[in-house]
């Protein structure tokens, strides 16, 4: 049994009167990739944002239940949200590099955290770009604008930027949906490499991608967690009819 990194207990989230997640409970293991699948509006992204409290900025949101990371309730009053967000890097659907150089993008987080030594920063940036499998492509133009890179490269720079603050969890919201198959394959390969050191949760609309990269898959439908099981089981013999209908492309 793998060590539990994130424990969700009876989590319900609503935006005003509109429920987005209904009584969701699940355990996410350390160093595993967990895929969240389901139709648009089923609560996947809300779930993801709940883990690093990105929903805090929405005044109308109501959250009940618990989200525990390493056994600590992240919604308790004592939680330092900045520290929490350092623990959880996030990668979005559309690559969003800052309009700065590749170096400055990756060095941004460490600088905010007070690292000013140039050599130390260079080492951090280099390591993160290596981990994000893009170092060889950018080592000679580190000080060029990140916006000059291709979409796939930009996304990997964003992953490097997320890694630079030493997170333990990576939250990915459709990280390859805007990329061509080759760039997608690179990101997927990277995810499999990164899971050795990070706990990864990925939202994806691409069923094959979920099947390829994840160890566990959670299927959400209208705010409910319908099924959560090993990916191999979900894609060969799901237990619930709704899951089967969704992944096989049938009318629900």
């Amino acid at each position, binding site marked *: 049994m793998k060590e539990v990194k994130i424990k969700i207990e009876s989590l319900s989230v609503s935006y005003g009167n509109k429920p987005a997640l209904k009584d969701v409970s699940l355990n996410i293991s350390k160093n595993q990739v967990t895929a969240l699948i389901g139709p648009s509006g089923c609560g996947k992204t809300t779930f993801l944002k709940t883990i690093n409290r990105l929903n805090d900025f929405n005044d109308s949101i109501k959250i009940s239940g618990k989200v525990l990371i390493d056994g600590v309730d992240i919604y308790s009053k004592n939680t330092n949200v900045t520290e929490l967000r350092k623990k959880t890097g996030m990668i979005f659907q559309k690559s969003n590099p800052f309009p700065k150089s590749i170096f400055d993008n990756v060095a941004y987080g460490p600088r905010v955290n007070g690292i000013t030594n140039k050599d130390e920063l260079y080492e951090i940036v280099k390591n993160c770009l290596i981990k994000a499998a893009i170092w060889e492509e950018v080592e000679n133009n580190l000080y060029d604008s990140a916006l000059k890179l291709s979409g796939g490269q930009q996304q990997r720079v964003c992953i490097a930027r997320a890694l630079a603050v030493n997170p333990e969890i990576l939250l990915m919201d459709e990280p390859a949906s805007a990329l061509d198959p080759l760039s997608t394959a690179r990101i997927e390969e990277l995810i499999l490499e990164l899971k050795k050191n990070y706990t990864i949760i990925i939202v994806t609309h691409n069923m094959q991608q979920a099947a390829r990269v994840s160890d566990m898959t959670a299927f959400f439908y209208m705010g409910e967690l319908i099924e959560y099981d090993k990916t191999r089981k979900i894609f060969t013999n799901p237990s619930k009819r709704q899951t089967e209908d969704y992944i096989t492309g*049938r009318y629900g």
Partner: protein
Amino acid sequence: MNNHIIKQFDEELNKLRARLIKMGLMIQEQIDNSMKALIHNNQKLALTIISNDDKVDEIDLKIEKQCLKIFALHQPVAMDLRFVISAITINEKMEMISDLATNIAKNVLSINLGLPYQNQTNFNIIAEKLVALVTKAVDSFTFQDTSLSYEVFNDFLELKKLIKENYNIIIDLMKKNPMYIDSFTRLIIINRNLHFAANFAVGICEEVVFMVDAKIVKHRLFDFISPDNNQK
């Protein structure tokens, strides 16, 4: 079962299912005819079986191509994946049953017409039971009925016993009638082919159980047969 959002996917799966059902009917006829040819030493029927094998081969290729097409274009998962994977194996087993029927027919053509063996061997009862077994196996696929699959597992053990007995009977007859050694050798080959055919019928049923219940029963037959048969 709900329809796929992509209608073409449903059409491809239905086409595959229809072809397999057709293949099932063809091999049922092949095995039935091969048994009739054997029991009645019907050489004309034996020739029909041999020529029909080409038609089975033709549909075998079509089914294989259809499976490839579905994999390449639709990347099936869950129940669809199990169906297409099973279709490949079931198709292969059905084609082999037709090959065995053809082999039996070829051997029938070479048996000495005056050979006195019919009333002394188990072939009559084996033929009846084998045809029933293959029919049940094909039906278990057509109707996706695993209760028939489990019946086949049990029936197979009974048939296997008869085939084993039959082998000993043929060997005894061979010893008593050494002048017909060539024809009796052919009967031994036929006897063995019957065993293989029954085995493939079991294989079809194992796939049906996988397809319908997602349960792998292959190589674990004894876990799925009735206690009575288990002691045999």
